[in-house]
């Protein structure tokens, strides 16, 4: 299925959960996830399956002023 992650079009396995997507990251720092502009608490990452057209944003803290 097609998803948008951080504004980029990507294709992913149908029905993949948020946890499943994040699992692929090399790093494991703390992140916050917004699904379709709403914050998704980490307790729901495993349970939330993504659908066609979903937009996911993943943020973390970086160095900044």
């Amino acid at each position, binding site marked *: 299925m097609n998803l948008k992650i951080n504004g980029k079009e990507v294709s992913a396995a149908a029905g993949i959960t948020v946890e499943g997507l994040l699992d692929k990251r090399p790093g494991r720092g703390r992140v916050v996830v917004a699904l379709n502009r709403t914050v998704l608490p980490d307790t729901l990452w495993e349970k939330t399956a993504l659908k066609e057209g979903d937009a996911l944003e993943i943020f973390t803290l970086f160095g*900044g*002023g």
Partner: protein
Amino acid sequence: MTDQFKIAGRNVKSRFLLGTGKFPSNAVMRSAIVASRAQIVTAALRRVDLDSEEENLLAHIPEGTIMMTNTSGARDAGEAVRIARLSRALGAGDWIKIEVIADNKHLLPDNAETIKAAAILAAEGFIVMPYFNPDLADARRLRDAGAASLMPLGAPIGTNKGLCTKELIKILVAEMDLPVIVDAGLGRPSHAAEAMELGAAAVLVNTAVASARDPVRMAGAFALAVEAGRSAWLAGPGSVSETARASSPLTGFLG
């Protein structure tokens, strides 16, 4: 008499706030924070690139540090509010530096949008620290909106030009009860000392430390300068000139 620094009723141990951007590495950044003795440190919220190895910033921040997310990237109040809420959901705490910049050439803040964001975020329980262009009327609006401090710019971000807005900052210090924290543009420890001598409550520095040849040593230098400036302010400087007048042209008529 101890010199207590309080923001929103909370004791803050250091009047030197440090930004974490532009450091050559996270390790250097951590050493710089230690050398600076800063308690409040800023960070930015950014999108994570799923494909690359991201180091966890928080792992390199010393314990006991207060994280203050900066809403940098926000072009209006709505975006700033969103970043603040995301930051809170991330577990980064309630301290938020509102930075709303619509002008990408000079990176000057948009005071009107900053005030709007401040009102919304203060109502949601954030500790609002607004970065703004030092206008007294806007300072009053920020206070009324619930800001916990005022963060007037000394000079445009990254210019290292020092206290270009000195006279306006003096007015803020004189007229406002909120702590005045000079932010942006301080390029040298002497600038920081000068800001503190004017009565600023604290300073925030990033570029000048991170881009120094030896950021750790520069962080230490700034820490000393902030302490020196603060002590000088508390000591109350003596008079600068002693004028001995041989004649009395204005009051001679009194005899």
